[in-house]
């Protein structure tokens, strides 16, 4: 779907992060955890391509997008005001496979927190018990004091990486499934660990995108299929892949 909608509400988290909320029943109903939209700000936006942004939250008709300021596009989005229009393309991509009555773990790094938030709610709706480990560079990258937080500089929560005690926690908590989103290197490490322990793991990948719908093949990543490496599109075949399929070292 493509819809031009006004911003309904903006939540500033801190200097680097903010959340844009829009209201649209149709889009909200269609949106599943792990999916994303391609955003194009209206007006004097200088950029050419849309910006892929995950669904952070859905509540009734409201859709939230949690965004980190990186470059021109995300900074432009951060300067928008309530009532400004954005052109939304989506929901796009596949979605997380949500189990029932399991012990699952979410592991996020930085803005990788965003897609897991909506996922965590849906997981709880399906009676899963959820443990969430989140890591960031410093206090600024921490969004919820009620989950397990790590910072690289120790400015909040434990000092270290989300992988620091992961093996032990997975064992102790008897985790049956892992969902992760964050820097490539983090997801790779986690996949190594969970693969050893044979825990089903879903990763949310990122890639530079143009069309967002599977046409341009610009977002291709190497995926193992029947012992062969093939290029799959993150935008349509993904962004969610089973960690076992991902060819991490290309």
């Amino acid at each position: 779907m493509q819809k031009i909608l006004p911003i309904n509400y903006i939540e500033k988290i801190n200097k680097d992060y903010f959340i844009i909320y829009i209201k649209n029943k149709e889009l909200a109903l269609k949106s599943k955890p792990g999916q994303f939209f391609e955003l194009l700000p209206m007006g004097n936006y200088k950029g050419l391509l849309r910006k892929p942004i995950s669904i952070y939250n859905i509540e009734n008709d409201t859709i939230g997008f949690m965004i980190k300021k990186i470059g021109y596009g995300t900074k432009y989005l951060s300067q928008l005001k309530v009532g400004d229009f954005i052109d939304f393309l989506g929901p796009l991509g596949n979605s997380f496979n949500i189990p029932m009555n399991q012990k699952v773990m979410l592991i996020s790094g930085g803005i990788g927190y965003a897609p897991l938030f909506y996922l965590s709610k849906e997981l709880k709706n399906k009676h899963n018990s959820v443990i969430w480990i989140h890591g960031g560079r410093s206090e600024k990258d921490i969004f919820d004091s009620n989950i397990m937080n790590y910072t690289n500089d120790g400015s909040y929560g434990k000092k270290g990486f989300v992988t620091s005690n992961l093996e032990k926690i997975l064992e102790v908590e008897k985790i049956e499934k892992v969902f992760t989103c964050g820097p490539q290197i983090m997801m790779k490490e986690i996949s190594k660990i969970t693969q050893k322990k044979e825990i089903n793991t879903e990763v949310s990948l990122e890639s530079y995108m143009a069309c967002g719908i599977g046409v341009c093949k610009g977002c291709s990543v190497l995926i193992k299929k029947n012992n062969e490496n093939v290029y799959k599109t993150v935008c349509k075949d993904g962004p969610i892949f089973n960690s076992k399929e991902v060819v991490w070292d290309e």
Partner: protein
Amino acid sequence: MNNIETKLGKLQFQNPITVASGTFGYEYSDYVDFNKLGAIVTKTITKHPKIGNKPPRLFETSGGLLNSIGLQNPGLENFIKDELPKYRGFSTNLIISFSGSSISEFKEILLRLEDEEGIDGYEINVSCPNVENEGLAFGVDAKIVNKLTGELSKLTTRELTIKLSPNVTDIKEIAKAAEDGGADSLSLINTLLGMAIDWKTGKIYFKRGLAGYSGPVIKPVALNLVYQVAKTVNIPIMAMGGISNWMDALEFIYAGASVVAIGTQNFVNPKITIETINNLQNFLEEKKLTIKNLIGKANMEEK
């Protein structure tokens, strides 16, 4: 709807708007009624499947897009099996883009496609590096383009369009060579060549170094080349290069294009083709103009 009709060589077009190869695919049917397009041009296929280039494959520059897709495609037979049936169903023109690494491979692909129904024309992508010309693209050598066109034109009665590269000293010469070889029409321009380097680290962004450059920024370049070629040849032109709206489309029609294709802009606005058709039609109706009377009518008259 007479005023928006046009022709490309042997083909009748209900309107002059089509899509640039590689920037459009079946996925757009969620957003666009394909039957409303002047034609569908498919992504370039090759004899064998191509997995494409190592990522990253895209990079946005100010107003432009660099791509290094590497002609990822399922190959001729898979295309015929899996994709052609989907496209065949539409009532508009279907133009298949393909490329080869030698003249005989081009011929082989064309002959195989001749067996298939529902195809209205071929767009010959000669911008791929090849062996017969020491690794340079076919499209930069007038003699080879002439020979290739000559051989292909003998093999088909379907529309034969040669897609030209802008990265040449004299595109007029190549265009003439294709015309003399028997091309029914020409398609231009393919992407410019560009590159991206990270100023922080000196890292070359694309694994192959260079990439194809497209988008609004290449429009003035494309417009000039279309104009030059239109003055040189007598066969019709399908134009592309940075076309982002119906006003751009009109500029190219004035420059000499019978048909215009939208490329990169599809990624930005999936409904751009339909919007362009509608806006063009409204404009023509309001001004009581017809496309056919505007083709090549760019003028220098003093005010």
